[in-house]
C-alpha cells in the first residue's frame, strides 16, 4: 500500500511503501522507475502513469479552471493530492492548458465550465496576413507574459516543490502541427491542407518555435518531462503523406531545438499505429497511443528505440470498467511488455476521464506493482 503525506506547509512530501522492490533492492522512486524504463534498464516494477487526469481532478473538486487558477498555488496542491490518490508514478500539472497558450496570440479561452476541459478558439483567420512575425526574444516575452502560461509556470513550480525528485513532473503541450490547427481552428486548418495552401507550412514553422519556447519556459519552471500531444496528426485525420510532409519535419526541428536537453514523449490519438516507424526516429522517450492500437505490434516495431505508452481504453476501462476489468487488461499489456523485455509505460490510452472511479486507476497501478517485468 502506498500513501502520500502532504505536510501542512505543502512543501514536503514523504513517500511510504510497505512493499519492497521485487528484487529485494531499495525501492525506486517513481521518477527513477520512469527514467530507468526509458533507458530499458532494470526496474522494480512497470511504471504506471495516469495520463491527463486534470478534467478528472476539477470534476472531483466540483470546480472549474477559473477557480483552480485563482488558488494561491494555481492548483498545485490539489493536483498533487489527487494524483497521489490515483497512485500514479507521475504528476501532471499544466495539461489543462495544453492549448491555452494560444491566448497569447488572440485565442479566446473558456475556463468556466465546471468539471469540463478548457475550450480554446482560433487565434488567426487569414494565413496571408495573420501569422505573427516575431523574434525569438519577442516570442518568449509574449508567451511568458500571458496569463495562462504564467499560471501554468506557477502550477508547475508548485507541483515540483511538493513532489521534489520522488515523482516525475510531466507537462503536456500540443505539438507543432496540432498547435497550428489551434491557431487557425482545426476545421479551417484541415481545409487549408486539403486546398494545398502553401502558407500552411509557414504557420507550422511558427508554431514549432512557439512550442519550443513554451517547452523551455515550463522546463525552467520545474517540469521533468514533456508529453507532446499531436491529436490532429492522427491516422483518423491525415494521410501518411501529410504526416511525412507536415508533421515529421517540424517535430524533428522541435526536438533539435531542445538539443537533447529536455526529455520528451509523444502522444497521438486514434489510429497512430502507422506512425510508429517515423516516430521512433524522432528521439522521443516514449510514444503514447490509444487502446485501438495493437500494443504487441507497436512494442515490436518500436525496436527499443523508445518505450510505448498506453493503452487502457479511457471510456471502456477507466470510465465504464471495473477494477477487475482494468486489472485484467493491465495484466495483458504487462505480459506483452514482459515478452518484449520491457518498454511499456502502463497508462490510460488518451486521458483519465472526469467521473472515472479512482479505484480503476489504482487497479492499473496495482497491476503494475504486481508485475515482474
Amino acid at each position, binding site marked *: 500500500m502506498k500513501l502520500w503525506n502532504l505536510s501542512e506547509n505543502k512543501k514536503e512530501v514523504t513517500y511510504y511503501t510497505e512493499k519492497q522492490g521485487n528484487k529485494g533492492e531499495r525501492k525506486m522512486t517513481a521518477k527513477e522507475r520512469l527514467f530507468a524504463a526509458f533507458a530499458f534498464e532494470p526496474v522494480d516494477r512497470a511504471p504506471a502513469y495516469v495520463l491527463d487526469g486534470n478534467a478528472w481532478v476539477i470534476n472531483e473538486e466540483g470546480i472549474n479552471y477559473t477557480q483552480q487558477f485563482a488558488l494561491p498555488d494555481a492548483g498545485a496542491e490539489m493536483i498533487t493530492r489527487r494524483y497521489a490518490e490515483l497512485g500514479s508514478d507521475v504528476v501532471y500539472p499544466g495539461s489543462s492548458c495544453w492549448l491555452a497558450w494560444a491566448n497569447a496570440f488572440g485565442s479566446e479561452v473558456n475556463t468556466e465550465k465546471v468539471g469540463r476541459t478548457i475550450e480554446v478558439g482560433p487565434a488567426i483567420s487569414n494565413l496571408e496576413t495573420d501569422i505573427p512575425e516575431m523574434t525569438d526574444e519577442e516570442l518568449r516575452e509574449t508567451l511568458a507574459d500571458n496569463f495562462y502560461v504564467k499560471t501554468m509556470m506557477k502550477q508547475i513550480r508548485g507541483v515540483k516543490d511538493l513532489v521534489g525528485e520522488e515523482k516525475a513532473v510531466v507537462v503536456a503541450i500540443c505539438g507543432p502541427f496540432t498547435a497550428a490547427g489551434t491557431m487557425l481552428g482545426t476545421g479551417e486548418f484541415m481545409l487549408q491542407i486539403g486546398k494545398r495552401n502553401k502558407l500552411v507550412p509557414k504557420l507550422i514553422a511558427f508554431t514549432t518555435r512557439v512550442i519550443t519556447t513554451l517547452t523551455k519556459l515550463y522546463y525552467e519552471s520545474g517540469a521533468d518531462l514533456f508529453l507532446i500531444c499531436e491529436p490532429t496528426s492522427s491516422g483518423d485525420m491525415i494521410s501518411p503523406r501529410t504526416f511525412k510532409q507536415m508533421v515529421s519535419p517540424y517535430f524533428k526541428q522541435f526536438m533539435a531545438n531542445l538539443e537533447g536537453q529536455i526529455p520528451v514523449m509523444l502522444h497521438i490519438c*486514434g489510429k497512430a499505429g502507422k506512425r510508429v516507424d517515423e516516430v521512433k526516429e524522432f528521439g522521443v522517450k516514449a510514444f503514447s497511443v490509444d487502446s485501438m492500437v495493437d500494443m504487441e505490434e507497436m512494442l515490436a516495431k518500436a525496436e527499443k528505440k523508445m518505450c510505448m505508452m498506453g493503452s487502457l481504453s479511457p471510456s471502456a476501462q477507466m470510465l465504464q470498467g471495473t477494477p477487475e476489468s482494468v486489472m485484467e487488461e493491465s495484466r495483458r499489456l504487462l505480459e506483452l511488455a514482459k515478452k518484449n523485455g520491457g518498454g511499456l509505460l502502463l497508462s490510460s490510452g488518451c486521458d483519465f476521464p472526469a467521473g472515472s472511479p479512482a479505484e480503476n486507476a489504482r487497479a492499473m497501478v496495482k497491476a503494475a506493482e504486481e508485475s515482474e517485468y
Partner: protein
Amino acid sequence: MNFEELCIQAKEAMIDLDEDLAYETLDTAIENGENLTLLLTQGYSAGMQELGDLFAEEEVFLPDLMYASEIMETVSERMEKNMENAAASIDEKGTVVFATVEGDVHDIGKGICCALLKANGFKVYDLGKDVSAATIVEKAEEYNANIIGLSALLTTTMMVQNDVIRLLEEKGIREKYKVMVGGAPVTASWAKQIGADGYSGDASECVKLASTLIA
C-alpha cells in the same frame, strides 16, 4: 458535352478535388438547361460517395473530405438558385438531425458525417456544436426526423449522448427515432450501455449505419 458526360465530369471533379472543373461543369449544365437534380445525384454526389469509400479504405483523409464538402456545398447552393423546389425534387432516404452534444465544440467529424449522409441521399439538419439535449430533441420533432446523430469527442461530453436518450424516453417519444452515436471516446459498448440504436467509428460507417437503421 452531353448530360452523361457532364455527370462523369462532375463526379471526377469531386474525386480529383478540382474546384474549378466542378463549377465549370455546373455552369455548362445550367446553360444547357440540364436536369440539375440528376446532375447532383449522378455526378457530384456520386463523386462524394466514392470519396467516402476511399476514406473508409484510408486512401483519402479528412483534409480532402473537408475540401470536397466545401465544393459540394457551393455546388448545392448554386443549384438551388437555379431550380425551384430543389430540395423537394430530390428523393430522400430519410431525415437526420445531427449535432455535437452540449459542452463539446468539436465538429469536424460531425460535419463530414453530414456531408456524406447528404451525398448518400439523406436530408440532413446539421444543428452544429455544443447543442443541448433539449434543443436536439426539439429539432428532431420540428423536422420530423427519422434519425438523431450524436457526436462527442470528449470523455467529459459523451455522457450527454445518454442525456438525449433519457430525454426522449421522458417525453415518451424514444420509439419515434433511431439514435446513432459516435466520436473518438465512444465505443459500441457505450452505445449499448446507453440504449443507442447504433454506433459508428467514422463517417463512412455512419452512412452505412444510417442506411441500415432506416431500412
